[in-house]
């Protein structure tokens, strides 16, 4: 299953709803172009909704980190919402759970950008 991405505005925050797999090739590339596109539009407060992402490989992890850094370099914030168990486990063993702000509630996630 390839990756699909749509985004919606919630005030100053852009919520990106992702579904599928973030893996080497199209999945990672789509995540990269989505984040870069938002930054080009001056949308620097980004919440990635990973509720329907059940698989990420090392390439996908690298793309998440790359996006996090790119947003931070623009004085913005990139946060994560609704991790599936596999993705949460992956971020925990790679210690990235301590790097990203991770939320289980969208309202709380949106408020955290204030």
């Amino acid at each position, binding site marked *: 299953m390839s990756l699909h991405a749509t985004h919606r505005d919630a005030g100053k925050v852009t919520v990106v709803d992702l579904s599928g797999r973030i893996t080497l090739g199209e999945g990672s590339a789509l995540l990269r172009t989505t984040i870069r596109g938002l930054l080009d539009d001056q949308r620097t407060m980004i919440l990635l909704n990973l509720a329907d992402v059940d698989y990420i490989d090392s390439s996908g992890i690298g793309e998440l980190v790359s996006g996090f850094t790119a947003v931070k370099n623009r004085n913005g914030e990139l946060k994560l919402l609704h991790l599936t168990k*596999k993705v949460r486990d992956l971020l*925990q063993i790679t210690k990235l759970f301590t790097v990203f702000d991770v939320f289980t509630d969208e309202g709380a996630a949106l408020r955290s950008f204030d």
Partner: protein
Amino acid sequence: MGSDDKHLEVTLETQVESVNLAEEMCLRMAEAAGFGEDDCYRIGMSVREGVINAFHYGNQERPEKKIHLAVDLTTDKMIIHVLDEGTGFKLSDVPDPLAEENLLSTSGRGIFLMRAFMDEFDVVPGKTGGAEIVMSKKLPAPGSASANGEGGQSAPQQEA
């Protein structure tokens, strides 16, 4: 090898599609061998990472080079070999992705994931040059919680 052992060997092109193909082939073998859902996920991920390593680091994404995948299914474990046609590397030269200075690196987690997800993992010099990743997963005992589609054990945890 015993008479019931199974052996699969394929030569893959150095292209992104080979990663999915290798994962799919090994997943089917793992499912047929009786591995549960969690172990299949770990085996599939490890094969992906092994082939990504061969594709990107070993063969430098050069299409004239090949990736050699072999799977042995013995009475007690599944053994996976991924051989590239690069210049080889030493495990000791691979940076630790958990080190503070590497946490925000955009690459370098493949070896770590294979080590975490498989029971045995090593990198040896290939017979024809390059690097050969050799990794294995012990077959679940018949009727155990990790066999035949049940979730079984959770993902390995690392000390923070």
